[in-house]
């Protein structure tokens, strides 16, 4: 154990040190282009984890995509899937894999930026072939969970099992409760506030802007939200609509670097993730989207081609491997990149008991991290 590990461990509550944290293997692959047979690749990666069938047969699988920010914003004019969105080819192949493994229903979800309109239209605006995707499995649905969206009758409160740091529970669109298997399809990216955004951080987008958005109602949800969530979540200038439980401690720091890693872990523990997938074939560095300013946390954005795929069943082990593949120490304390400004979300996830962020306790299959590592900005 390194000195750094000891320092990090010292910050954790006693129960986390004493409890054996869950672990699960993580499958990784080198893959340089999007012109591959992803059905074959994903099937083999699932095989590394024990097979896909036992995970999804006869189940409703809900896939949280990463479609962050307006589809109108592009990095260097590139297709969204090459920089900061889930790639449509991956989504199509994954749908086929899950369908052939017996998934009863596949639901794509995202709280689309600034709208409660149909997710299918948002995907069309992102340049996706929605018609092709909708026929890739027996039952495919596209659901914008920024509000009730006309398909859900109610919100469902899902508690943060360990009690939470900021919020004790979240109100989600009911589709998240109707889920047998939750999958997070993320992108291998830096995050301006959280250092990295992988499978766990992707789940932050499950929170409906109708309740947690800047223009959410004080009392009731605003079913036509048009804004982001920074006022309530990032900086805590106000509380969510009263339908949701308020913050545990309104006197706690109003600092996004403190709040967002915690809220992200809270969301990922309130709606647990069963399958985590991270696309790092092509992506961007320096932030989660092209709107990140040059003076952001990482000093600028760029399009890169790490050529990596990561798949796991535990979000913490998957994100830990993903962070290591980006060239970072997954156990880096606050002050060390990528967590040089924020708290380490992976260690917070350990604290919440979601899984281990210790590479020594994670079986990595399909390649060696040191061989496949692609150095993101400010990595050692």
């Amino acid at each position, binding site marked *: 154990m390194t000195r750094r590990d000891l320092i990090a461990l010292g910050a954790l509550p006693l129960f986390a040190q004493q409890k054996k944290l869950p672990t699960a293997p993580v499958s990784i692959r080198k893959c340089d282009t999007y012109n591959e047979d992803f059905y074959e690749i994903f099937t083999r990666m699932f095989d590394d984890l024990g097979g896909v069938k036992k995970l999804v047969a006869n189940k409703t699988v809900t896939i949280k995509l990463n479609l962050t*920010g*307006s*589809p*109108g*914003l*592009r990095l*260097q*004019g*590139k*297709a969204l899937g090459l920089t900061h969105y889930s790639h449509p080819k991956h989504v199509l192949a994954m749908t086929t894999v899950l369908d052939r493994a017996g998934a009863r229903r596949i639901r794509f979800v995202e709280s689309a*930026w*600034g709208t409660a*309109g*149909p997710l299918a*239209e948002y995907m*069309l*605006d*992102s*340049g*996706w*072939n929605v*018609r092709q995707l909708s026929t890739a499995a027996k039952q495919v649905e596209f659901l914008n969970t920024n509000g009730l969206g006309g398909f859900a009758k109610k919100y469902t409160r899902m508690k943060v099992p360990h009690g939470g740091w900021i919020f004790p529970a979240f109100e989600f669109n009911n589709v998240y409760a109707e889920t047998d298997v939750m999958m997070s399809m993320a992108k291998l990216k830096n995050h301006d506030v959280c250092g990295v955004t992988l499978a766990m951080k992707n789940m932050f987008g499950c929170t409906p802007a109708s309740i947690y958005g800047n223009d959410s109602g004080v009392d009731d949800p605003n079913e036509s939200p048009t*804004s*982001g969530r920074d006022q309530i979540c990032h900086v805590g200038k106000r509380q969510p609509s009263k339908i949701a439980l308020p913050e545990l401690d309104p006197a706690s720091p109003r600092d996004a670097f403190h709040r967002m890693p915690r809220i992200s872990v809270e969301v990922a523990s309130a709606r647990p993730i069963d399958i985590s997938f991270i696309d790092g074939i092509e992506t961007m560095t320096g932030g989660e989207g092209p*709107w990140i300013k040059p003076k952001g946390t990482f000093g600028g954005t760029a399009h890169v081609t790490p050529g990596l795929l990561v798949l796991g069943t535990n979000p913490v082990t998957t994100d830990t491997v993903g962070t290591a593949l980006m060239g970072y120490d997954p156990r880096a304390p606050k002050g060390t990149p990528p967590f040089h400004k924020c708290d380490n979300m992976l260690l917070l996830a350990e604290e919440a008991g979601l899984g281990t962020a210790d590479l020594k306790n994670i079986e990595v299959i399909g390649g060696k991290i040191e061989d496949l590592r692609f150095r993101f900005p400010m990595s050692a």
Partner: protein
Amino acid sequence: MRPAIFLFLAIALDAATQPADLVPARWPSDNPASLAILNESPINCLLIPEVNWSSTFLAAAHAKNLTVLALLQPGTPALPRLKRALELGLDGAVLEGNFPEAEAKAVRSSLTESSRLYVELGLRGRIPLDPTAPSIIGTFQGVWAGINPHEDGAAHAAPSGAPWIDTNAGFLRFVRASTDRAFWLSAAPPRDSVVNLSRYLQMLSDPAMVGARWIISFEPSFFAKLLASEPKAQKDLKRINQVLLFFEQNRKLQSLPAFGQLAVVQDTQNGALLSGSVLDMITVKHTPVRPVPFKSVEFKAFDQAKMAVNVDPQSLDPKQRQVLKDFTRSGGTVLTAPPGWRMPVPRPDQIVTDAEEVKKLDQIWKEVNAMMGRRNLGVRLFNVSSMLSNMLGPADGSRVVVYLVNYSDFSVDSVAAHLLGKYSKITIHWPERAPKALVPYETEDGTGVDIDILESTAILIAEK
């Protein structure tokens, strides 16, 4: 480029040196050899600054069937200069700039008497839209179309939104609805900006999709490279000619009226000739829109409309108000600005909406946006954040035409168009490829088609 096309074009343009067929370019040279640049170009009309007037050049240009116009800008009295131009044998004159009204009138009169062409590119607010207007009208106050950077170098994009596209399309829609005159637009690039090929294509396509023409103005360094026959410059010129030719070949489509179920009742006194006004806002939302100038506020103007925005109700006379009431009674929805609400009267030299006007517009914009919602008012376009469009077609909807222009420096892939109503045949026309029949599919509103890739511009033609 195919020789047959050029032959056709040359014959067509030669036979009809009609003002409406002139494709103008500003020409910064008196060297007859420079005309070789136009060997494969649809450009057939040159605007020559006074310093470059020369009988040798003129003879060479006329030998190539080019129309040559004197370009006069404010300064010394215009009439003596005009006299010299006419003596040299130039085919007419273009007044570019804010000339005193009496001086412009005298120039026009002189040119009319000598059966020469008169073009006035004056202030936006003084564009002649009445029946006595000359055959070509225009303004020197065009905006440089495209996604232009802020002064601090950042792109015109909110963190949450699509980039704002500077366009002339909004006010030109109004011009088209007001007059059938040919329209020329003069616009210069932002200072210190690099004008690459994409920017030329965007600038010429922006007015062209609305039936107007940008007066092609090559940057001095680019023109010098063309004169020196630099291969890269020649390649870029070939692309410019390709797109230019595309618009000229399809110009007949511009005789179709604007199509769509949304009408905007607006006129010059409440901002219809400004950029950044309601028409641009709706354009950027990719919603087909039909401007209705005050003089056209008759029941038939709302024939196919389902919604109308009445920007400045105070300016309508009782008869016009009655037309809108009748439209509402027949099932239409009219969004009217609140009582007492008035758009400030624009200054004649004003180009864009100012802060006060934007504030005013914001008051009704949210309502306009909410009223339009996800409704298909003719066509819904997807994955077009870097594009603008213009929809035309006869009122019966038997055939619709959708112009698409890409304002980014990159090709756009996977564009979807959902047309309102059933169409059995949809063809895409583009400068870079042969026309292609698209495979229509059924959508919630009617008919959808997917466009795999769009480079500079394209025209969708759908038939029932």
